[in-house]
């Protein structure tokens, strides 16, 4: 996990992220970084990232390849570098000096390309500090999946007040706004906001909710859940991952609290959703936002 204190705007669409970045830059706020599962075009320009000079590196590598190709062949095929110790290469009376250059074209060409490609490859890995086995510096496990993150350092709050920042991000379609602590854990008080459509953003997640539930509370919530959605044997389970928004991790969590089928999901009520959220401690508001209930109903019909 990335070891950094950050304010994160969470998005589900590149265009929304891009427009937030534009607005923030207009206010003079520096963006620490954005994390996206796919390349968002023009994001680099808008963030003010300087064009990388990898192309220069590629050109130099290509030139090295070109020269080594020529050198290799002159060294082996001719005596221009006084390299014939014992075996001159006499092949069908073909020239043994500069005159053999046409034969050198293919290999020189291939080596130029080989050096360019691997040169730029390794330069890229070096500049991006990527190496096999490196632990990824993530802000959230979904940043490579279906969420886009805009990260701002808290020091930038000198240029924009916190509430202004929140409104700006929300107005441009942020799903939620989070803070991360130095140790990489999410801050306790999650400032959570719905997109403008529904009720006004309310700071709802109290620290109690986030804290571990007592055993009593747990059993109480589980029994509430069971009374509404019913109990199903684990053998009859549906592939809950078919619900857009449910991944393997979340599916396991749902299974662990006794939800296995689409039918159960379709029966969820606002109360039970709250219970699930506090039991699984995972993205509050997600179930309603992605409308799992009607998704599940559709999947049942199939």
């Amino acid at each position, binding site marked *: 996990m990335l070891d950094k204190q950050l304010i994160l705007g969470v998005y589900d669409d590149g265009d929304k992220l891009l427009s937030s970045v534009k607005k923030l830059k207009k206010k003079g706020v520096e963006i620490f*970084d954005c*994390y996206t599962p796919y390349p968002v075009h023009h994001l680099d320009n808008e963030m003010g990232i300087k064009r990388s000079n990898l192309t220069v590196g590629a050109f130099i590598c290509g030139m090295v390849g070109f020269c080594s190709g020529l050198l290799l062949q002159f060294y082996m095929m001719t005596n221009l570098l006084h390299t014939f110790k014992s075996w001159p290469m006499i092949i069908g009376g073909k020239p043994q000096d500069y005159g053999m250059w046409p034969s050198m074209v293919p290999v020189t060409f291939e080596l130029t390309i080989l050096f360019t490609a691997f040169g730029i490859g390794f330069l890229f890995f070096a500049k991006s500090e990527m190496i096999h086995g490196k632990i*990824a510096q993530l802000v959230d496990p979904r940043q490579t999946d279906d969420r886009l993150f805009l990260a701002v350092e808290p020091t930038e709050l000198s240029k924009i007040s916190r509430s202004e920042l929140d409104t700006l991000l929300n107005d441009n379609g942020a799903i939620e706004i989070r803070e991360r602590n130095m140790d990489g854990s999410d801050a306790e008080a999650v400032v959570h906001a719905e997109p403008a459509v529904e009720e006004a953003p309310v700071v709802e997640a109290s620290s109690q909710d986030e804290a571990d539930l007592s055993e009593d509370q747990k059993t109480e919530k589980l029994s509430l859940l069971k009374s509404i959605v019913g109990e199903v044997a684990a053998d009859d389970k549906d592939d809950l991952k078919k619900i857009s928004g449910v991944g*393997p991790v979340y599916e396991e969590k749902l299974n662990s609290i006794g939800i296995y089928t689409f039918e159960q999901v379709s029966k969820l009520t606002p109360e039970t959703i709250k219970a699930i959220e506090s039991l699984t401690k995972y993205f509050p508001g997600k179930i309603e936002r992605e409308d799992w209930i009607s998704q599940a109903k559709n999947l049942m019909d199939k």
Partner: protein
Amino acid sequence: MFEAQIRQPLVEGNKSIADVSNDICRPIENKPTKLWWLGFTISFAFLLLMALSLGWTVWEGIGTWGVNKTVMWGWDITNFVFWVGIGHAGTLISAILLLFRQKWRMSINRSAEAMTIFAVLCAAQFPLFHMGRVWLGYWPLPLPNAFGSLWVNFNSPLLWDVFAISTYLSVSLLFWYLGLIPDIATVRDRAVSKAKKFWYGFFAMGWNGSARTWHRYEIVALILAGVSTPLVLSVHTIVSMDFATSVIPGWHTTIFPPYFVAGAIFSGFGMVLTLLIIVRKVLNLEQYITIGHLDAMTKVVMLTGSLVGVAYLTEFFIAAYSGVVYEQYAFLNRAFGPYWWAYWTMMSCNLLAPQVFWFKWARTTPWFIFILSIIVNIGMWFERFVIIVTSLHRDYLTSSWAMYTATLTEVAIFLGTMGLFFTCFFLFSKFLPVINMSEVKSIIKSRE
């Protein structure tokens, strides 16, 4: 906002970003299906057949093949050129279509590039084992040696081939791997088991989708596409020079490089179609690899097939017009000599069959395209057979004339490389995302 529908959407079914990950990661995150196991077992059996027949070749010697003094290249070089050619479509799709900014490449480039790599691996077996003493297979490399440094011969197209093919293989591998990194990271972050987290994490190289890395990544992709394009053209050009720089009638023609490149793209697209029609069905990816994709690819097949056809006819015309009796004989012998059946198979499969793609029905009916793609593969295999065997079997001296028939060992090796190819492809479809998720996520229109 209203958007005019000029083109069909590239991805159907109103997918969200999460859908893309879920759909494409499904084969990786779930247990393989029965169909997968069936296909994998059959392929693996053929791979064992390859090991067996190559082992037999090494143990007993090249005498187990049907090649002789006159026809010294038989099925082996035919298969070599066939497989190298197949590889070309992958690079064409991922590199050339990237330069032309053709977005439909995005859901097929991953599997096409994988196909390139596996095909080149198959191709490499043939020259290596044709050397006879395969344990000396490193001799074509320019290494200092114990003969007072007797170097390799850079005047020889066979050596150019060594450089071309090995560069092609390694650059394709790099390009493919680079494209895979963001997707491997996605699989890593979705993984539940520790082993998966570790292995995908290992190969993801710490990818986190930072905007700065994406910025560099796109530059690298563009440069790699830029160098792969001339590379892919050079590879089959150099393969064709194995023939064209010789003085054998039927080989010694300047039309060979462009004609071989067109043929390679043609056969490669044939194989891409064969594979993708199966993949989209078996892995339920019909909304990603749409009829639109098949339509576009069949158009390429039709174009390159016709180009190859023009080359066949040009060769014939030039032979007649040149007034060189050896050339004239070589071509008449191709069409009406003892190997006439191979020649006419080639003509009908490569020149005539793809012409059905003028009709929209033919371009949009998967089962029909599947059959046609098999026909294209057969035709292109025969093209190489015709070029190699018919040109060789009638030498300048009538006393050296000979016929060539493949032996069971040669057939087994060829079927075996099919096994190698499909084994690799099945493993790929189980362990890696067959569609480039990160690119597809950037082209789905309907993001809420």
